């Protein structure tokens, strides 16, 4: 795609009220032609354009300060330019991002922009017309600028294939025209005017698309089950309750390209025969909810949602349901209960939601990323999608690459890629060039991928086989300083708190497992604890109704499987090899190296350090809370952690 952003729909700009006297929205052909014309008009704009990454993460990294600096500089140099906000392009490590497009010139992207840098970029590039090759990260789009690499040639982008993220960071998420100009709503138009629901299901089946929310159930098959159920009333739900800590792809898609989710949802609704849809979005994502609300209003205004879409018999309305903070509501039957206004507790299946779901009617639930992939599949053809991936896991998958990695970010790669490529080529390797220890995949339901599996092709089957799961695609990289027992304890404390309490093995079993892990990390573990964790873990998995309990022990089981020696060090030697579990740590000051600089002494929260200016400091073990502040602050490596 052309990959250029144009500014958002302006009030009264091309609105149906302006173009048509009647309340009737324009036909799709007219709408598309106008969107393309607007797109070209903005591409050919004679004003400089400054594009800022304003997703939640961009703002957190300081995009607001950059925007203020840009406005100030433009005023200072007396230049007129359009400032546009886009979603996240995925190179989160380089936030805040600032792109400059000069009339007739390629789009140059600058990363890690500070307010001072922004001023320099405005002065030299916007006013002076000279791209700053030393500061620029890449050229976005097909063009080239001497001395600056192309975006798609960056190591972080080279092996990516963007499907669900195809528009993120490239189009203005608040502009329906930019979406339409980039093939938006074309799939919905084709589906409603040319295809039967069976044909739509057939194409999705042929593409091999599997649910991106975790379990990887074939999407076309899921639609078919619901399609075959009799009855006039059915419901289509988008699962945007991205609860896995460490995953943020759904947020990025909702913030960066909300219309694609609406389009995917409408196509799915047509396939199963629903006229009412819900988007269940977690309340922790206020920006995503705001963008969705605006996108729905806009789509309704243009007749892309609502009654008789494109003049056909198909009507579809979407409501947003805000989650209220319960991890288990990501589970289908729990989500249905929550939409109905009840405690979000899962129930036994059958009946499956396809038979009896929301308000007892046939219901299909698909994840955000799955739905975002659907329009691309229907535009480019199922074969295009199926050409990516492995035999049983087709297409591309987004991963939220985080943890101890140099270039954290949101990536979308063809399945079958190895973890080594993801960590070292795309992620740039481990922070401080430390040793890769494991990657945690699939959040609290997942497990660890050890270093021995770095060259294993990533797909649904392989990950399950080694005891991890694909899950929603959170990929947290851990190095030698990460304690695997502590990681297991962390996940257990999460699932234990989030267990809804319905199934006894989950409610009490996770509590027992957590207590055992806490004991181990405090140095009070017994050698037999490890086997009792394994035994209990299997019981919790077997005795729980839903996926929360069914997968809750995974982080423990997989860390024991690959890092049993680390558990043994905790229970037998009462030692934490990674130096994380505080009760097992001991801090002292090396008198040879201590210069008596007072930094640790002044900052010790427990006042456990004595000494004076140029007098060697000592730590009182009785007072020491083992917080590690002295270890972090000492510039002379004089604090020894053991």
């Amino acid at each position, binding site marked *: 795609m052309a990959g250029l952003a144009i500014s958002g729909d302006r009030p009264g700009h091309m609105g149906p009220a302006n173009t048509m006297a009647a309340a009737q929205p324009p036909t799709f052909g007219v709408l598309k032609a106008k969107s393309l014309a607007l797109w070209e008009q903005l591409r050919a704009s004679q004003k400089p354009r400054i594009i800022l990454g304003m997703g939640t993460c961009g703002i957190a990294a300081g995009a607001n300060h950059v925007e203020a600096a840009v406005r100030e500089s433009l005023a200072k140099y007396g230049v007129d330019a359009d400032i546009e906000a886009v979603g996240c392009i995925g190179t*989160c490590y380089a936030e805040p991002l600032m792109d400059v497009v000069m009339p007739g010139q390629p789009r140059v992207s600058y990363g890690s922009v500070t307010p001072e840098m922004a001023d320099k970029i405005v002065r030299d590039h916007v006013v002076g017309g000279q791209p700053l090759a030393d500061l620029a990260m890449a050229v976005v789009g097909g063009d080239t600028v001497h001395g600056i690499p192309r975006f798609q040639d960056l190591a972080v982008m080279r092996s990516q294939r963007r499907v669900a993220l195809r528009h993120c960071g490239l189009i203005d998420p608040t502009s329906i025209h930019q979406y339409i100009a980039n093939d938006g709503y074309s799939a919905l138009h084709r589906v409603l005017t040319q295809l039967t629901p069976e044909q739509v299901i057939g194409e999705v089946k042929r593409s091999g698309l599997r649910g991106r929310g975790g379990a990887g159930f074939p999407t076309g098959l899921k639609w078919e089950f619901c399609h075959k159920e009799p009855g006039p009333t059915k419901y289509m739900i988008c699962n945007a309750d991205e609860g896995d*800590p460490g*995953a943020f792809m759904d947020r990025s898609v909702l913030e960066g390209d909300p219309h694609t989710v609406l389009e995917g949802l409408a196509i799915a609704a047509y396939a199963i025969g629903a006229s009412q849809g819900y988007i269940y979005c977690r309340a*922790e994502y206020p920006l995503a909810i705001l963008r969705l609300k605006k996108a729905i209003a806009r789509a309704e205004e243009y007749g892309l949602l609502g009654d008789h879409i494109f003049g056909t018999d198909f009507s579809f309305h979407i409501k947003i349901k805000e989650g*209220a903070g319960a991890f288990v509501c990501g589970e289908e039957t729990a989500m249905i209960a929550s939409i109905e206004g009840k405690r979000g507790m899962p129930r036994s299946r059958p009946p499956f939601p396809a038979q009896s779901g929301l308000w007892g009617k046939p219901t299909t639930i698909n994840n955000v990323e799955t739905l975002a992939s659907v329009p691309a599949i229907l535009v480019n053809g199922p074969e295009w999608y199926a050409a990516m991936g492995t035999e049983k896991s087709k297409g591309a998958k987004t991963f939220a690459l985080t943890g101890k990695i140099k270039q954290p970010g949101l990536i979308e790669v063809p399945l079958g890629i190895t973890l080594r490529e993801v960590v070292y080529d795309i992620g740039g390797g481990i922070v401080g060039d430390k040793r890769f220890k494991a990657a945690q995949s699939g959040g609290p339901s997942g497990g660890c991928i050890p270093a021995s599996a770095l060259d294993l092709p990533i797909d649904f089957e392989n990950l399950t086989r080694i005891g991890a799961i694909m899950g929603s695609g959170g990929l*947290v990289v851990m190095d030698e300083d990460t304690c695997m027992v502590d990681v297991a304890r962390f*996940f257990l404390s999460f699932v234990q708190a989030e267990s809804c309490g319905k199934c006894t093995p989950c409610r009490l079993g996770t509590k027992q497992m957590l207590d055992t892990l806490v004991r181990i990390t405090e140095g009070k573990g017994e050698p037999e604890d490890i086997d009792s964790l394994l035994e209990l873990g299997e019981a919790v998995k077997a005795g729980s109704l839903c996926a929360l309990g069914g997968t809750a022990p995974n982080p423990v089981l997989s860390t024991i499987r690959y890092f049993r020696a680390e558990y043994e060090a905790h229970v037998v030697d009462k030692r934490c090899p990674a130096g994380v579990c505080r009760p097992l740590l001991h801090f002292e000051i090396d008198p040879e190296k201590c210069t008596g600089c007072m930094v640790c002494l002044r900052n010790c929260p427990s006042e456990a350090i004595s000494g004076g200016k140029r007098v060697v400091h000592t730590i009182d073990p009785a007072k020491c809370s083992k917080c590690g502040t002295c270890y972090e602050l000492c510039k002379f490596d004089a604090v020894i952690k053991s």
Partner: protein
Amino acid sequence: MDSDGVWAEAPHATSLPFRRKKVFLLQETVAPIDDLLAPWTGQHGALIPILQQVQERYGYLPGSAVEQIARFLKLSPSEVYGVLTFYAQFRLTPPGETTVKVCQGTACHVRGAKRILEEVESVLNVKAGGTTEDRKYSLERIACFGACSLAPVMVIGSSVYGRLTTQKARKMLKQ
């Protein structure tokens, strides 16, 4: 209710790091919510959005409002209580003026979120789940913000701060 007769804040339960115990305020003013309820007449699935709207207005769920909601939806107050205690979002005591949330998600955890939380607890002199005595700040620990690439992260009011160190967190709070 504590001895000076104002608040009854639930004690922080260490075994439930992500959830707070919830008890009603025993003494409080009447909370009129008729205008919020009216649009939901005859709609199903209204309970959770109503609770969210009431909490948005008052910052918490006053007991009298919970009773009105129950009457409106023809539920027993205990059913409403059952739902509101299930979800982490709902609170039965007023929050402080500003809420500080420290993320304890996976990515933040491996990048030292625990130390950040301890630092914030010590600066504000309040434990996670509590509110400062002057009712200026509430401190919460949350599971994930989805800003993992900037870990560790905290949110003060509605501003997100990323790539934190203990020193940076202290500085942000001072501002």
